[in-house]
């Protein structure tokens, strides 16, 4: 790779309770309790710093602003994404779990529904996260993006199914019941190559 | 119905009925098994109703299940015999009503009453009544809209 840089890390600094946004041109990225905290990478070792950077880049490239919130009282992806959507000025949110599973949600949809769902966490890489961010922003602008193509791999089951279950359980351990969502500021740091 | 009822309960040696006791079998339209021929199909004499199971036949299969020490299977066949009278769409409707948080207790009891009263489906009614009671205890009845 020609990129001269080394690996990036991210820390999420809490800046106060998450509030409903007022800008119509914003997308909320809602992360799960253990994202970029207890965990640092997805099930296939994509660093959370990269997940977040690409999601935010996809949104920014479309000229839309983004806010990041951490949901603390549930590890249910639909609940996280839906809460994000309700706090989003545009009504659009990206929800993401530590293991990488991602969902696009809109505030008027029933919680159990979604705009786009990416259930196969082992198949999500930086490029896909960029496209997900980009689509979220396009929905926020009222455009009609092509849904991000989802991939499928029959052999993902033997390789990843149990680890996914384990990560899911670990994420549940990090739930802090009765603590509301909090707005966070991502601070990316470049570790020396 | 013209179905002849055997005087003594059936036992394992009567199975399969289609081979050993065809004389006991009738379609819901009253035809014997031997009428279900290719000629009858081609001439248009047979309709879809001729290829359904009759409630009496399900009762016979229930006897066989009982005689094979399968009381739960037998009960299922008896409930099925009751349900042959319920139209397809209503069967699916009732099934959907039994899903968690889909119905209030009153709605479930109304279904039970319809089963018992309208269809004479006493055993099926019992299942729905039991569901109503358990759903109430386990908080699985329909709730007012919430987020």
């Amino acid at each position, binding site marked *: 790779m020609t990129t001269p840089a080394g690996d990036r890390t991210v820390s999420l600094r809490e800046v106060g309770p998450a509030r409903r946004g007022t800008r119509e041109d914003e997308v909320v990225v809602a992360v799960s309790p253990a994202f970029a905290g207890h965990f640092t990478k997805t099930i296939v070792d994509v660093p959370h710093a990269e997940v977040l950077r690409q999601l935010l880049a996809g949104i920014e490239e479309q000229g839309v602003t983004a806010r990041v919130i951490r949901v603390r009282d549930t590890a249910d992806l639909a609940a996280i994404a839906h809460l994000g959507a309700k706090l989003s000025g545009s009504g659009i949110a990206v929800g993401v779990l530590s293991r990488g599973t991602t969902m696009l949600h809109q505030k008027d949809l029933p919680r159990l529904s979604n705009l786009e769902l990416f259930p196969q966490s082992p198949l999500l890489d930086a490029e896909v996260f960029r496209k997900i961010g980009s689509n979220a922003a396009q929905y926020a602008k009222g455009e009609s993006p092509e849904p991000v193509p989802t991939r499928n791999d029959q052999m993902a089951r033997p390789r990843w199914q149990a680890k996914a279950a384990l990560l899911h359980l670990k994420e549940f351990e990090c739930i802090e019941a009765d603590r509301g969502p909090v707005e966070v500021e991502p601070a990316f740091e470049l570790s020396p190559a | 119905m013209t179905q002849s009822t055997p005087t003594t309960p059936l036992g394992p040696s009567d199975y399969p009925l289609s081979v050993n006791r065809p004389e006991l079998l009738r379609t819901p339209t009253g035809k014997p098994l031997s009428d279900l021929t290719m000629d009858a199909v081609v001439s248009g004499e*047979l309709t879809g109703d001729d290829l359904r199971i009759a409630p009496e036949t399900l009762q016979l299969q229930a006897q066989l299940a009982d005689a094979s020490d399968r009381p*739960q*299977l037998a009960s299922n066949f008896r409930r099925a015999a009751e349900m042959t009278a319920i139209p397809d769409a209503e069967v699916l409707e009732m099934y959907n009503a039994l899903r968690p948080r889909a119905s209030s207790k009153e709605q479930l009891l109304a279904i039970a009453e319809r089963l018992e009263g309208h269809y004479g489906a006493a055993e099926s009614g019992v299942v729905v009544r039991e569901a109503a009671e358990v759903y109430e205890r386990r908080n699985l009845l329909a709730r007012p809209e919430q987020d």
Partner: protein
Amino acid sequence: MTSTQPEAFRRRSSRRTEILEDRPVNLDGFVEEWPEKGLVAMESEFDPRPSVRVEDGRIVELDGKGRGAFDFMDTFIANHAIDVETTEASMAIPSDEIARMLIDPNVSRRDVLAVSRGLTPAKILDVVKLMNVVEIMQGMQKMRARRTPANQGHSTSARDNPIQVAVDAAEGALRGFAELETTLGVLRYAPLVAIALQIGAQVGRGGVLTQCALEEATELELGMRGITAYAETISIYGTESVFVDGDDTPWSKAFLASAYASRGIKMRFTSGTGSEVQMGNAEGKSMLYLEIRCILMAKGAGVQGLQNGSISCIGVPGAMPGGIRAVAAENLVASMVDLECASGNDQSFSHSAMRRTARAMPQLLPGTDFVCSGYSGVPNLDNMFAGSNFDTDDYDDWNTIQRDMQVDGGLRHVREDEILEARDKAARALQALFAHLDLPAVTDDEVEAATYANSSNDYPLRDVLADLKGAQSVMDRGLTGLDLVKGLEATGFHDVAENLLTVLRQRVSGDLLQTSAILTPDFVPLSAINDANDYAGPGTGYRLQGERWEQLKKLRHVTSATNPETEVG
């Protein structure tokens, strides 16, 4: 992948390690146990201790819980699955004694059932926990409901091409599957593909039963119309919260079971170890304990059988220590409570061919009602159930293992000329039937391609729009199995028409509703009633011998003893 370690500190690997590292088995995932959360196969100190208490003819305590604390699974099992009359006596028998009964040839299947119908989930777990894999197999050999083992196949197409589904069903039926199952990529294709499956199956071998896995309403409708013959994808779960997440309860599923029977349609439930922990709500119980709750729930609902063996969650127990032993045990439990058991081996399980084979031994060697509840009768790339543990590439291996071990896994080697004949005939029958019913045409090129094809890539592309319209018209015009019979008869496929009519006629008798029922090539219903498992030790029960053994001795290449310069077959 993630070589974050600086080069200098990386340890040098041996050549052998590199070779082992590259073995397919190392592409599989393995995780450590976490019993507190239920990430454990079957040995967990967090599982309940067995107990039962009956008052006034009602179970008031189950596995350490009083009735007031019952969740709906406890309630359903206590009310419907456990025999109140005998439970206290059965529960008083020490677990090791029951475990020994399971493997003791002097104790009949009936004697075991007399005890097992009074056992609670925790007690059953306690019993099977005492058994190693060989003992589990011994138990399965005796407790399987039907004496004669059988197998089930999948016939699907990555393009939902009905012609492919038909010809692969015909080949599968000819090779020996007693049941064939299909499902769709594009759901609206269902009517055409279900018809194709039915026609192909009846061409290959009259009396094969078919089903199309769909959401409940459409699956039931296709069954009621006589286009399919049985149903299987009725899922149940071992904890209340996961059951509710699946939008069902034991009562809704029990109601559905009666609904199927009321239409004369054979049906079984589906469950399996690992599904609850996979969905994050195992309530701290082992996978096998929760699966035993499913099995007893199915028993209580009065459904005749169960598809289990982890099924679509096989990657979870597969990654745990002793996980495949637990999967073998869940099949045994289904059989020991007198349910038909379609025993899994139906989902992509491992990158390693050795693991795939080993995983199937506890079902193949003792025999089950259906050794695979979906051996892929198409190449796995066409398998719309996300791939099976075995596919068409494995046919010859499977046949050879049957011959090596002298066990009946339900399949046989068939000469290519017979296979080509069946495939050609299935394609032509479908061509004639579609033309007769004014459904989208099947061209001669397609028939030709279908006869010699392996995967969906070998077929001409179909006009999907026309097919979908045709599929819709099947529903709109209310076509039934009877219309298929008429069409086949009118177009000169008399034998296929007769086969299908005979299958439809079975619905009137209800004989296929009994436990473990299949149809023999002579259209005789074979179930746990007239083909009850009578295993009583060496020399008894089902033995692979006589004509069937002669069939299974045949392989693609066997050198002739009379003239070693030639092959027999």
